[in-house]
């Protein structure tokens, strides 16, 4: 399969993720967010459940809620761990709409920069401080207050649309109610959008707490990447990789979003095997010439 066709398929699934997250078009008639049973299901990526057309809930929004009411989010942690064990960070590469936005903006022709790896501590700080500790102590959703995804898909659409609330008969957002926080959120979003044009997936690499949680399972998940013994470290994989990973150094790095773009290089293969089976017992590659002599560093 050629890389162009392969990428087209991945773009299609990313668009599917975007559509799936925004199925509730009845909002334009009712003027209220969806309150049906699907709202109890978290999407496997960051997507604000306050978005007017959102069908599902945001996992990080839900975790903050659990922290705010001083309960451990057993169900969310359990089902994200299960997802991570099966396919690692695949949802980041194949479904996440914010990942799609970053991929598309990075394609704009301009000078590119490489952000230092030192910033990789970012997701840990965000998860511990904004998602867990501050909501636990203050009962406020601090990550949501700053999240650029929420600003883009919920804050701006609600302000731009400002529908009449059918229960009160008044517009949802009264005049002069946009505070300092809204302006701050716009500035954060603007900064990130600018960064998306010049750097590879900076939000996924240096901020996203969902990606961080799923990354813990990349090394033991069923889905794995392998690099053949005869890899000459030509850096083709790094150039292809939207996360800027040197795949030959660590094919199952926590940063890997399993987009499989690097499998365009014949030295990188993808395998899926249950632990307990011999490593090479069931290998699923994307090209016949790839898997000979594969290794897992």
């Amino acid at each position, binding site marked *: 399969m050629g890389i162009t066709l392969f990428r087209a398929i991945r773009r299609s699934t990313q668009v599917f993720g975007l559509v799936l997250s925004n199925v509730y078009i009845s909002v334009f008639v009712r003027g209220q967010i969806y309150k049906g049973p699907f709202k109890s299901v978290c999407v496997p990526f960051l997507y604000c459940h306050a978005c007017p057309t959102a069908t599902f809930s945001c996992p990080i929004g839900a975790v903050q809620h659990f922290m705010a*009411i001083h309960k451990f989010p057993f169900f969310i942690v*359990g089902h994200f761990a299960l997802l991570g064990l099966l396919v690692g960070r695949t949802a980041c590469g194949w479904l996440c709409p914010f990942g799609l936005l970053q991929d598309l903006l990075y394609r704009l022709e301009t000078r590119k920069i490489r952000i230092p790896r030192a910033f990789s501590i970012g997701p840990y700080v965000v998860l511990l401080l904004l998602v867990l500790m501050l909501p636990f102590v203050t009962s406020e959703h601090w990550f949501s207050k700053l999240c650029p995804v929420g600003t883009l898909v919920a804050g701006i659409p609600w302000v731009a649309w400002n529908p009449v609330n059918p229960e009160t008969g008044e517009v949802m957002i009264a005049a002069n109610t946009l505070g300092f926080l*809204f302006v701050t959120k716009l500035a954060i979003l603007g900064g990130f959008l600018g960064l998306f044009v010049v750097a590879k997936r900076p939000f996924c690499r240096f901020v996203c707490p969902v990606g961080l949680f799923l990354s813990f399972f990349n090394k033991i998940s069923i889905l794995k990447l392998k690099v053949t013994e005869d890899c000459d470290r030509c850096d083709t994989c790094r150039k292809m990789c939207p996360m800027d990973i040197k795949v030959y150094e660590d094919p199952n790095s926590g940063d890997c979003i399993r987009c499989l773009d690097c499998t365009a290089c014949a030295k990188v293969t993808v395998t899926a095997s249950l632990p307990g089976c011999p*490593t090479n017992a069931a*290998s*699923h590659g994307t090209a*016949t010439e790839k898997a000979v002599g594969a290794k897992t560093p």
Partner: protein
Amino acid sequence: MVEHHMHNGPDTHNATEQPCKTRSFWTALLVAVAFMAYGVFRGDVLEVYQDASSLCLSCFGIE
């Protein structure tokens, strides 16, 4: 194209680390399923629903 490779015997490169990874995987799987089951039993799903179906405008800086 999907391919299958069968090798004779285990991969010696992974002979020592494989049992450890196998244990980690199945332990994590067991814990994940137990967490999910307990979460459902405790009513976590309803809690997620209640949070997600209410619109928090103050989270967007709208007073």
